[in-house]
């Protein structure tokens, strides 16, 4: 069984069963227990985590490892158990993006990353010391905004 939704942002979206991510606890403060990832602009690094229960709910996300090579994730033992992964860095990781008009003002939430493992997603608190709630996604280089470091 697959799912088709009428997204308020993107029109008709179709998700195969295996592309549906279950969020048993939803995202913190937001509803929805089923989401899908959309790649509207390949090579940009930005994805959209789209709620399948609410056609108006979608959040831009990035894999923090692409923009922050030193990104680390420290989860409590109970959270690791909840996710079901021994090494959380081996899971798919995403952080929410707070879009702003100027690229250098765009921030991401490294404090509460989304860990996706075996079709299930959880937004968890990262206790790593450098996990900022609003980490600038781009560093200023000269006149233009550039990625902090390109992913290897």
């Amino acid at each position, binding site marked *: 069984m697959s799912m088709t939704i009428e997204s308020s942002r993107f029109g008709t979206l179709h998700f195969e069963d295996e592309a549906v991510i279950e969020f048993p606890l939803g995202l913190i403060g937001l509803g929805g227990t089923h989401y899908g990832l959309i*790649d509207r602009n390949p090579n940009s690094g930005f994805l959209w985590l789209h709620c399948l229960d609410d056609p108006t709910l979608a959040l831009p996300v990035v894999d923090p490892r692409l923009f922050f090579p030193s990104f680390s994730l420290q989860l409590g033992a109970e959270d690791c158990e909840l996710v079901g992964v021994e090494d959380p860095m081996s899971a798919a990781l995403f952080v929410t993006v707070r879009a702003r008009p100027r690229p250098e003002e765009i921030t991401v939430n490294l404090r509460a990353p989304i860990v996706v493992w075996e079709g299930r997603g959880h937004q968890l608190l990262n206790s790593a010391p450098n996990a900022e709630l609003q980490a600038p996604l781009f560093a200023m280089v000269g006149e233009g905004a550039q990625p902090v470091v390109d992913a290897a």
Partner: protein
Amino acid sequence: MLILTRRPGERVVIGDDVLVTVMEISGQTVRLGIAAPGGVPIFREEIWLAVKEENRAAAQADAGALPEGTTSPAASDAAGEGAQRPS
């Protein structure tokens, strides 16, 4: 709001499976121990509020709100196998 008075070592039970224990009181600080089933999220309020605000702010973004083509080709692999791409 239910208001209870408890001493160190005493507990409050919420439902059948959430136990809150007053561990220690020191000046203006109270240490609580919380036992809840796996999967029940427990947060300090200020962190929960801050993350909720970040999530809500992120969800305000329009479809065209993000810069284009800002990263290396490695970014294209970020989506994993499940991501839907424009045809």
